């Protein structure tokens, strides 16, 4: 049993990280043309206009919550005078709402994928792998959040978060994760599966988030020479 836990919480995260980084680099190197959202809005717009933003905005809130919950140690918020009860109420309400929005959004998107014929026809093998995992990650996470509502429930900030931070110190605290309830373990495992699939699916579009646009002049000029040279280099 102990070996399994070491493998899951001490070794697997690094394998996934290596796959995530290496896979993304490989994809960028050899398939830059494939870095796209593969938007399906041309086929169907009404449902996407509900599901797309709902899912993504919900997801970004959820991600923000993860950054706070996983990276900021409980000691810090304590010292800042944020009470344990207030913190968890907040996490439950805001996190729960964001999670629900993301799941609802994904449900709309999935319904659309399955029911709109053109969208279904444009669904790739990698999509078929990613959607179930994505949905499962979200559901497991939401269940974990909901389970935190009970009084005296598991405080993940003293377990899962400690393990997560220890990963980056290259000293994985396997014990911290071993004691976590099953939903948390499941959520973490599914998330690792998602990160493993990431470079090989449409999820790479998240790397392309065009933040530079905010600072760019509207009109882009380019010399014929720069593109011609790059093209010669690429082929």
């Amino acid at each position, binding site marked *: 049993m102990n070996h399994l836990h070491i493998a899951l919480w001490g070794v697997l995260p690094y394998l996934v990280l290596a796959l995530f980084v290496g896979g993304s680099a490989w*994809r960028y190197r*050899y*398939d*830059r*043309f*494939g*870095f*796209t*959202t*593969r*938007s*399906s*809005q*041309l*086929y*169907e*717009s009404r449902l*996407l*206009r509900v599901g*797309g*933003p709902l*899912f993504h*905005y919900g997801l970004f809130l959820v991600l923000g919550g993860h950054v706070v919950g996983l990276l900021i140690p409980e000691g810090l918020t304590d010292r800042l005078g944020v009470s344990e009860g207030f913190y968890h109420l907040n996490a439950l309400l805001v996190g729960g709402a964001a999670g629900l929005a993301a799941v609802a959004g994904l449900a709309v998107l999935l319904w659309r994928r399955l029911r709109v*014929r*053109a969208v*279904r*026809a*444009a*669904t*790739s*093998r*990698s999509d078929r792998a990613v959607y179930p995992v994505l949905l499962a990650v979200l559901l497991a996470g939401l269940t974990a959040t909901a389970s935190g509502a009970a009084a005296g429930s598991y405080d993940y900030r003293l377990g899962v978060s400690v393990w997560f931070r220890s990963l980056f110190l290259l000293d994985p605290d396997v014990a911290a994760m071993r004691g976590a309830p099953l939903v948390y373990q499941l959520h973490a495992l599914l998330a690792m599966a998602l990160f493993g699939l990431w470079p*090989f*699916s*449409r999820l790479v*579009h998240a790397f*392309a988030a*065009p*933040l*530079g*646009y*905010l600072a*760019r*002049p*509207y*009109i*882009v*000029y*380019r*010399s*014929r*020479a*720069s*593109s*011609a040279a*790059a*093209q010669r*280099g*690429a*082929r």
Partner: protein
Amino acid sequence: MTRTPHKHSERRSGSAPIGRVMAQVAMVMNLDKCIGCHTCSVTCKQTWTNRAGTEYAWFNNVETRPGQGYPRGHEDQDRWKGGWRLKHGRLVPRSGGRARRLARLFANPELPTLDDYYEPWTYDYETLTSAPLGDDVPTARPRSLINGAETEITWGPNWDDDLGGGPARLAADPVLKQLERVGQKVRLEYEQAFMFYLPRICEHCLNPSCVAVCPSGALYKRIEDGIVLVDQDRCRGWRMCVSGCPYKKVYFNHRTGKAEKCTLCYPRIEAGEPTVCSETCVGRLRYLGIMLYDADRVGRAAAVEDEQELYEAQLDCFLDPHDPEVARAAEESGIPHDWVTAARRSPVRALISDYRIALPLHPEYRTMPMVWYVPPLSPVVEALSKDGHDGEDPANLFGAIDALRIPLEYLAGLFTAGDTGPVEAALCRLAAMRSYMRRINLGQERDCSLAAAVGLDAERMEEMYRLLALAKYEERYVIPTSYTGQVPDPDAAADTGCGLDGEGGPGMYERPGETFHALAPAVGRQDGEGGENEADEEDGELAGSATRGRVNLLNWDGRGRPAGLFPRRRGGERA
């Protein structure tokens, strides 16, 4: 061939200081000559968009006007939010500034769907041969190329061709609706209707809104020749350019998830050859040439308050290449000498700036379009002849141009933001030319007063006639070969590659059986995320060997022997 220099009418270029000079390959189409044959659309399609994913993409399309256009009603910017608008005197994309665009990334509220274009289809041709013998003639049923299902054909790229569909359909024309808003009731019954054809390609705008709304900076304007292109390797499929272009000339390849647009056939232009649509135009109505312009004036010109002044403002951006000051400034800006001389001979410049008979399409979108049009006189002439008048009598014609308000205002709705003045002036010049030349053809004396009435002299009138009626290949297309320029503002430009040849991309070699004529298996066809380029390379080899040794007659100007018609002699020289 050299033509005697004209008297030059570009104003201001002498007086105002000249900023950074840039060169633009521009086009003019003479609408009177378009017979609506769609040859240009088809040859363009065969060249650029005969791939799965671009079935519905018509880089060149020919619309009957009045009509809805393609995609339907694309001129209704209240709905599609293409182009620019003025906000407190400053230009912002009509669809919103940068932050608003980013917030709408997850679903673009202004994106047209296939319903606004049409659902591309093929036919079950196989049943024609595989149906068992019987009394009934087998039919090939239409099948959607999008999802493989049987489909009803309810719309197409030129469904309302030749006023097809009648008044009910035509009433949806945004230009007509605008006319009605200002109180013009247009009769659309066949007997009273007027019509003409409007071939459209990308305008390769001086102030392109497609470029402005692209969050990845994948669209760019080439500094050497002004051609607007999509870098396929940088495009991330945010599909903002599709709605950002008011002319709806960026298409989304639904297989590759990338935007594609008219390239002005840049590989041909670079070699000094005209675009495929020009080359194959049956009416020989397209002109290609260089326009020199002052890049520093563009921003201000596009931001003039009154929409009806945009035409004049754009004219003011153009520079007169005969002016030695301009020639000097151009060479200082890195434009080679042969481009300046080409600009002097540019037929496009003559039609736009000298004779002032070419007008921009929808200047009110503020993108400063660079494909201009000589408005058609034929609706007026036809209306006259229908009433039993002599359609070429100058008195009749001038009167009719003034009296036939409907075609005039419609044309003004297309070309001058509703200001009938410039349209009327252009039509009067064309009318005067007709009458003037008729006298000559009938052996009568030249009537110089006709020329003077429209501000020309006899010599220029006849030159204009030659350019419009007789100009040969090398007078219609004056295109210098390519050079390499300097990026005006290094910060504004990126230097990544421009790969057109990804899987399913515009430069992809055709996969046997993968063009849109063949129905690909509908499910799982996008399989194989990643590593797709390898397969592509193999196909490249394949297609390369299949076409090797073929003669490309598209490049042949009809003179001499086309390159490669005969095999090489030993020793490597061509026979």
